[in-house]
């Protein structure tokens, strides 16, 4: 009796957080599950009705949806797996060897790109990739062919924008991980005559595999929910060629007024996110 009361009393401070999380996070998620099976519309409808799996069937038959799935995959692989992750590791490794002024300067520039508000980052990279923008100026200077990037390769442009904006996170995670490798280990490998790439593959990567896993999961989850950056740069266009799932979801729910259908797409996105989230938890547990 007394023990239960004490345990309850001790749990009181957790209450405000739990209430907030239940009402404003768990509530919407539950509502998302319900709404995904209805035909709720934005306006002029007295009562929505339950339509079973209609929304999902419709999604699978919709070319625009499949296009969005494909583009989301491209966006995630290019910007998160290949871009942020690899570049972040490379920068972290170089930062350890570089001289102090270069280290400070590079760190500051890369982190500033990360701290900037999403919309501002969108404007900056919009200007960078425009026909009359900086990228083409650099290409002209190098005598390379220039083009209208936001029109010819919009999905690559927004992917690079996401690399620009997100690499700092990977760089910070990998810097912390590399700092934990004992110096003797790398020195021993060097004395044994292992070259740079072999040392990376056989010594460094196995030692930071936990950080690699964590970083990949968090990058992917962050990338799956990018909206503002793409919205500012291309609005998902031209003609849907940079429309990832979040932008498709928004268009269906608000521009086409189909909240129920948009929510079904949201639920799919949420399920993919949850899957990655569970993988991330497992990774933390098995490696801890």
């Amino acid at each position: 009796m007394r023990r239960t009361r004490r345990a309850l009393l001790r749990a009181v401070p957790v209450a405000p957080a739990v209430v907030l999380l239940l009402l404003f996070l768990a509530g919407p998620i539950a509502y998302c599950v319900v709404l995904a099976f209805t035909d709720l519309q934005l306006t002029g409808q007295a009562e929505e009705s339950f339509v079973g799996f209609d929304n999902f069937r419709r999604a699978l038959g919709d070319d625009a949806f499949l296009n969005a799935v494909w583009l989301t995959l491209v966006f995630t692989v290019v910007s998160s797996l290949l871009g942020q992750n690899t570049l972040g590791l490379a920068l972290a490794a170089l930062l350890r060897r570089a001289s102090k002024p270069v280290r400070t300067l590079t760190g500051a520039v890369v982190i500033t790109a990360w701290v900037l508000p999403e919309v501002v980052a969108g404007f900056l990279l919009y200007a960078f990739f425009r026909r009359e923008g900086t990228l083409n100026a650099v290409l002209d200077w190098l005598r390379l062919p220039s083009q209208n990037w936001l029109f010819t390769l919009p999905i690559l442009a927004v992917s690079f924008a996401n690399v620009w904006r997100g690499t700092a996170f990977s760089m910070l995670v990998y810097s912390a991980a590399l700092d934990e490798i004992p110096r003797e280990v790398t020195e021993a490998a060097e004395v044994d005559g292992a070259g740079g790439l072999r040392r990376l593959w056989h010594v460094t990567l196995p030692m930071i595999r936990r950080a690699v896993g964590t970083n990949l999961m968090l990058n992917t989850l962050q990338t799956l929910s990018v909206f503002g950056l793409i919205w500012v740069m291309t609005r998902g266009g031209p003609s849907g060629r940079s429309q990832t799932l979040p932008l498709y979801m928004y268009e269906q729910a608000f521009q086409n007024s189909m909240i129920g259908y948009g929510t079904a797409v949201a639920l799919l996105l949420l399920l993919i996110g949850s899957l990655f989230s569970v993988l991330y938890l497992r990774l933390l547990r098995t490696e801890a």
Partner: protein
Amino acid sequence: MRGPAGTPAARRTRRRLAADAGLLLAAAAFALPLLWVVLSAVDPDAGLRVRVPDALTLDHFDAILTPEITFTPLLNSLVLCGGATALTVACAALAAYPLSRFRSRLNRPFLLTVLFATSLPITAIMVPVYALYVRVGLIDTVHGTVFFFAASQLPFAIWLMKNFMDGVPKELEEAAWADGASALQSLLRIVLPLMGPGVAVVTVFSFVMMWGNFFVPFMLLLTPDRMPASVSVNEFFGNRGMVAYGQLAAFSVVYSTPVVLLYVLISRRLGGGFALGGAVKG
């Protein structure tokens, strides 16, 4: 056998120079868009390219520093993000205390749920949140948006706060408990002051995340007068046929400066800004 260039010292120097060169190249690539915004903000003929201005001007700042374009949206941002950050930090500090101090069978499942929630894509639930807010009458209200902001940032704030709190030795409090201090008193008087940098990190991180967030206010607020800077700037500049790039750049500088300064402030206190990477790594 190694030649003279292969002595360890010479090799180290060579490697340092190679690393410096690689980093400078990366830094230049990352800096180009940043240079554009800084230079265009003071260039009378600002365009879309990075270029050294022929003359310097403050006209763009003059043009945007009006209540309609800058002051009202920034004030709205401050109210929204300040309110939500205060709520997040208070709830996270309270929740982290029992999680860090007392053993309970519920701690582990609770923390795992929190960790799971930190990585959910918030973007995905904005459509149902919108529908829910319309139904319960919270749509287009500042407090509704504050509550959602706080809830979405709370899992990560609890997680960070608990980790920082674990670093404060329990012995310091035991003396206070012996003197009859309550848990709340020892939290406020002993634990939180001792983890000042940790609280600062959670506060600044939450604030910066919300300050830059576009999608949440974009969905939950409708009245233009209530829009924070992240949304209003997009409406204002995006909906005009001719975009005034100089003004856009000037506004971007004004809107971004607070969060960049805040970040510099905490990274100084934490020794290099690499602490957050360590904290996130788990």
